[in-house]
């Protein structure tokens, strides 16, 4: 057994190192950001080669209802002022970077991203503002969960709602909604009333119209300032983009401010 032990040991070290690099490397060695502009809507851009979604057919509105007049109306409304539809008028101060988050109840990664974004917003001391959009793509439960999320948002519990959903599946039953509102400490009656309200329906149409305009194929999706991102993205990248958007400003898309 005169095999050189150093060779064996360095082999093991190499294998372990290689494995670790393969596992964690991509997060550490992300290259510099390169952007490419998108044609529509004007002024926005995406990260070059940054998403796997480009070859998909752009998704076509909510579920299967074709030619819903409300969708056309919503698209016209949103097109008139993309910036406010996206960021809900959160563009007042030059110092605040707006972030629009699109999530769906059935998307596993969305709930994680919601919490990461909430943490970034909290840490920023008011210099990052996240605007929450719901993009229910998969049927009725998805749609009702989205309405409940938006109703929770109206009582300041959007993130708590998503955190609560991490533990159990959403059920569209009165008992479940009562339990849920108790758990996250919001007014149950107001939530149920809001879920059925015109304003939430309109908000969903607007979010869907935005998703159509930005050609989102799925969730999660983000717009940070004027950069459009589809799919999961690392915390580091998000922070990096926020800082970049802060220095560059978003006047090109939100000139009304």
């Amino acid at each position, binding site marked *: 057994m005169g095999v050189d*032990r150093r060779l064996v040991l360095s082999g093991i070290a190499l294998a372990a190192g290689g494995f670790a690099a393969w596992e964690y490397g991509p997060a550490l060695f992300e290259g510099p950001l390169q952007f490419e502009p998108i044609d529509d809507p004007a002024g926005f851009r995406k990260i070059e080669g940054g*998403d*796997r979604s480009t070859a998909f057919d752009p998704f076509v509105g909510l579920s299967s209802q074709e030619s819903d007049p409300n969708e056309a109306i919503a698209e016209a409304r949103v097109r008139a002022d993309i910036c406010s539809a996206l960021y809900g008028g959160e563009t007042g101060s030059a110092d605040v970077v707006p972030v629009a988050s699109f999530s769906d109840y*059935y998307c596993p990664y969305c709930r994680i991203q919601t919490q990461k974004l909430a943490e970034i917003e909290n840490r920023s001391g008011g210099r990052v503002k996240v605007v929450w959009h719901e993009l229910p793509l*998969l*049927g009725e439960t998805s749609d009702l969960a989205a309405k409940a999320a938006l109703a929770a948002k109206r009582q300041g519990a959007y993130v708590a709602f998503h955190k609560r959903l991490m533990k159990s*599946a959403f059920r569209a039953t009165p008992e479940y909604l009562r339990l849920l509102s108790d758990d996250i400490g919001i007014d149950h009656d107001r939530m149920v009333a809001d879920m059925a309200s015109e304003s939430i329906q309109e908000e969903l149409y607007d979010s869907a119209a935005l998703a159509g305009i930005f050609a989102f194929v*799925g969730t999660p999706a983000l717009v940070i300032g004027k950069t459009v991102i589809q799919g999961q993205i690392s915390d580091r990248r998000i922070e990096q983009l926020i800082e970049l958007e802060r220095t560059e400003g978003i006047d090109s898309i939100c000139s009304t401010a």
Partner: protein
Amino acid sequence: MFNRLIHFGGIGVAIVFVFALSIMGARDAGAAVSDVHTSPAVEARIITAENGIAAGARSVSAALDLELRAGWKTYWRSPGEVGIPPEIDWSESENVKEAEILWPAPKRFRAFGIENFGYEKEVALPLRITLERPGDAVMLRAAVNLLVCSDICVPEIFELSLDLPKGGGIDAQSATRIADFAGKVPDDGSASGLSIAAAAIAKDTSALVLTARSETGFSTPDIFPELGPEVAFGAPDIRLSDGGRALWASVPILYAGPTLPELRVTITDGTVAATQTPDLTEDLPKPPFTLRKAVPGLGDVLAITLVAFIGGLILNVMPCVLPVLSIKLSSALKSGNQTRTRIRSGFLASALGVLAFMWALAAITLLLRSLGLSVGWGLQFQNPSFLSVMFLILALFAANLFGMFEINLPSSFQTRLARADGTPGHIGDFATGAFAAVLATPCSAPFLGTAIAFALAGRGIDILLIFTALGLGLAAPYLLVAARPKLVSRMPKPGPWMIWVKMLLGALLALTALWLLWVLVGVAGTRTAIFVTLGTLVLVAGFSSGRFRGRIGMSAAALLAIAVLIGPGFLTTPAPAASPVSATTWVAFDRSEIARLVSTGETVFVDVTADWCLTCKANKALVLDRDSVASALAAPGVVPMQADWTRPDERISRYLEGFGRFGIPFNVVYGPNAPEGIVLSELLSSQEVLDALERASSGSELTRAE
């Protein structure tokens, strides 16, 4: 550590192999394949085993065939914490009464702390389609709602269509694919040999605890409980005992609703899986051993620590380490002019060197574990490669201790060791200790391997304790000298007694090697064991005759060793897939035999089946394997005869044609009262089978059987 390298190699080979298979498996346009939906995430189509609907056929065996591109996944019927299973709407179809998805056993995905169950790369979801009008043409129109996720979740909504005209014939390629994945659908435990012994939910609904058994032993078990749509489960804590045959698992319940519906549990283990609905008991099953108790029994920890210490102590007399110790001792003897304090601190530094190496090993183990390599204790004893490595190492060292050949330290090490020892100051002493530990690795691999395997399953503190104890054992002579420097002069002189010690140790190692060989026979079969033994004998003979000298000799030895280690992977025939435990002993189909048997007064039950035939599987599970029918078929005077049509068989095809049938399932009962045979319907019922058996027989046998 050595076997881990082998393991990496094995994965590489497996990847290449799978890749080659997937290329070979690329299909040409078959007749029974729908149009294809293609997206960047998935390629989807409907396939059917039958090219057409045979006269009288009531069902079609189909599948939703999905080829997912790298990184994309889709979900099981119970998707885990979030996600949605594939849904198919058949309402636009013609002549489809019902279509049931049979879910192949899922795989667990963990990402960002979320547990998901589903499929990657490829999956065919077998579909058992029953027809409204038997024997009539079918138009399959599948509106599929499929959620696929990679780093983005995309809902794919598409339609697939496939028309099946009247007629016969089997599409061999589609049939094989359906059969492959139908074979992955969990059974009720009868064929897979998996069963759930007990299940209970903790009073505070914090966890589901269950025990299960495998007749052939678990190797890579996983547990997928389902408790209604509301309850989400976390990652299970799975522990094996009884040689891997008994499983205990605790699955955290992340959230439980106010009411709990019926529990359904799917156990998977490699290629087999079973789904059962155990009754909940009051008492929580006790784990076979404890891993994470706040204080894991002080006695246990002490015992393990003591074993590790003794193991470390024994390492000192191993052929690799003994020279280091003697060099160190003799150098201390020679330099008589050193002060006692200098000797003491020098030896302490050496002991620290030993410990440093052990702590480094502990750190690596912790790292491996954090990378997700938590191997259950005892599992490695089911891995033929691990067993072969251990056998080889133990056999070689036993041979060495019997004096058949000498193990020489690489000369570069010896020089460096001497140089390090000459280095003034404690750095040299420290290096000596570290070297002793490094040099001990070839001899200590069996012990360290065991310790690492155990440590991987333990807590961080356990890992630290075990390795520290090992280090203290190995460093004991140095510590002893440090405590009583005078001892140096009283060390026993080398002499014939050392040969006896060596013989004793050799015998112990040889016994261990024999035990491992015995385990290997059980795991990988006699052929593998003979191969490994022969290879090892040649290696030992080569070393003892001195043929493995120089570069060429060493390369030859290394090649041979690698062959011995890799061989088992190829030779090992997968454990005989748990022979079906059905009560019925089927006789192979022989048409000419039927008439002869009937003429002697026997009743013959003919079952034409195939692996890809989903309705046949339903018949088997719901009727043929059930007690009343199974015992009727096992009764004297009844001959159950099975024709396997999985591969095209001219004799079986002609037999079916004789009845004007071109599809299966097909069952006929012959007897003295029905020499022409009573044809049973496609979807069997127990009553129908029993009635036919009674009508066909002369009556007497069956009344006896009842």
